[in-house]
């Protein structure tokens, strides 16, 4: 059967050159990078080259990069590491209401440990208001975390505007750039951030590797205590093959971003226009312009997202949903709640994340199958009503 994969925010295929770069580090160059003989020190050197490649992709210096096991670990290290190191200065942290679970739940963890957390509301597009951030900062605020772009609604936040406020107030600013690195330009100096999390997901790197950028002299408590890997900021023998994969993917990504963005944006616009033409009673969620180039998200009235996801699955189409029924916790996506989508409409959430490996034919295939699937579910639905002709 035809397979059309449009869930690239969840995973991307590892690129061929990346796989090839990684392979020798499983069996040939398998030494421990902390070992002092040449079988170790050479690996150590290779790892530092990867650090430089990742740093170059985001305009940072090699020594400002910590390799982690994932974007989620990078977020945990940023939130927990900074909060633990700064608890003498203050006990208040601010995160946006639409952060990834790894940020939200790290913040909630500190709420149970005598910290105060402000969950900053967003507008109907998911944007954080800089004025509102300014109003939420207190003398005891030590950290603000706002994501670069949201993975569910694609909205890109005004990071430089938010970061400058934090700089003026002397508050550390972290951004989760997992959704943006590899999709839009990301430069830590332009963004003016103190910490930035990334993962290999949108880069075509393997799973199980991520990185945290941190500004010089920033105090960060390690979460994994062990040897002095990663300058003592993260213990544990490094996942060398995955790090080599991340380095290679970063190197490839740097040169091709503009073309990739234009291509993804064209496909996305085709998909969005086609869906809006063919299906009524839907809402395009997220910001219409300030959004990721390959990101299209909708809430479709009178149907439930998990059922739609499976129906599309049967046609070989792979997408995502923020519907409560598809989450193990059976809770509506906090992002859709935060942007004010009514709970019943939020059930009909569907998210397409397009990649430069997708094609126009694939978009056409989705546009052919999606209205049929929606129509079938609506014919079953007790709450579906045809809109009366105006």
């Amino acid at each position: 059967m035809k397979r059309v994969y449009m869930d690239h925010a969840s995973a991307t295929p590892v690129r061929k050159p990346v796989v090839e770069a990684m392979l020798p580090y499983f069996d040939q160059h398998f030494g421990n990078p902390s070992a002092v003989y040449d079988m170790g020190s050479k690996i150590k050197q290779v790892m530092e080259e990867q650090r430089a490649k990742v740093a170059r992709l985001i305009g940072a210096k090699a020594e400002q990069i910590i390799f982690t096991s994932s974007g989620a670990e990078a977020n945990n290290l940023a939130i927990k590491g900074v909060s633990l190191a700064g608890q003498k200065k203050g006990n208040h942290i601010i995160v946006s209401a639409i952060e990834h679970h790894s940020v939200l739940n790290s913040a909630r963890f500190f709420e149970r440990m005598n910290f105060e957390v402000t969950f900053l509301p967003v507008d109907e597009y998911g944007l954080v208001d800089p004025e509102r951030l300014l109003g939420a900062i207190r003398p005891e605020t030590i950290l603000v975390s706002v994501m670069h772009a949201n993975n569910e609604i694609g909205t890109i936040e005004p990071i430089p505007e938010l970061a400058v406020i934090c700089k003026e107030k002397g508050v550390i600013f972290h951004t989760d750039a997992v959704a943006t690195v590899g999709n839009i330009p990301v430069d830590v100096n332009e963004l003016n951030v103190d910490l930035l999390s990334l993962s290999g997901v949108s880069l075509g790197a393997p799973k199980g590797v991520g990185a945290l950028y941190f500004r010089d002299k920033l105090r960060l408590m390690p979460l994994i205590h062990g040897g002095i890997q990663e300058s003592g900021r993260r213990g544990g023998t490094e996942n060398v093959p995955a790090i080599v994969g991340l380095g290679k993917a970063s190197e490839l990504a740097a040169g091709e971003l503009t073309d990739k963005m234009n291509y993804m944006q064209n496909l996305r616009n085709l998909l969005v226009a086609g869906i809006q033409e063919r299906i009524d009673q839907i809402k395009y969620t997220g910001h219409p312009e300030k959004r990721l180039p390959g990101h299209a998200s909708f809430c479709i009235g009178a149907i439930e997202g998990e059922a739609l996801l499976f129906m599309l699955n049967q046609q070989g189409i792979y997408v995502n949903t923020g519907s409560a029924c598809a989450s193990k916790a059976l809770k509506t996506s906090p992002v859709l709640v935060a942007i004010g989508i009514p709970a019943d409409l939020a059930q009909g959430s569907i998210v397409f994340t397009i990649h430069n490996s997708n094609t126009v034919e694939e978009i056409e295939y989705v546009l052919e199958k999606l209205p049929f699937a929606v129509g079938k579910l609506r014919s079953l639905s007790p709450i579906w009503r045809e809109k009366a002709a105006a």
Partner: protein
Amino acid sequence: MYSEKVMDHFSNPRNVGAIEDADGIGEVGNPVCGDMMTFYIKVKDDKLTDVKYKTFGCVSAIAVSSKVSEMTKGKTLEEAKAISKKAVAEALDGLPKEKMHCSNLGAQALSEAINDYEERKNGKPKSASKAKKGQKPKEDITCGQCNAQNPVTAKFCMDCGEKLK
């Protein structure tokens, strides 16, 4: 995640639809929670001559509705009422643990339809049984900007994005 039987009933749901002159109607759940089922029954000589339904919800909610209609059509009211949530889940070769409570509403919706039928038969006015589920239909709010109708739980207008009061 789902058994083959669940996927079969989801892909080809049996007995879908509404019955215009139903002898009993049962409705459980609501779209805010994620699952809602409305069952319609026709009764003759204490037997369910027809069972139809409409379902809003996930894969398991649709499969459960379909299975319940299949299991109860042609049965006596007593037999139909005796069918438990557990029996429905077992007939589908099981449901994921987290779905057992929220989407396994079919047997309950059917029982409500039978109750509705019995209440009507015992001469209770239709309005009385309707009023019992009075919390169900929600008023819409009209957007001050573009006059679009929005669900009562909406914070922003679905059409123009204007903040709703």
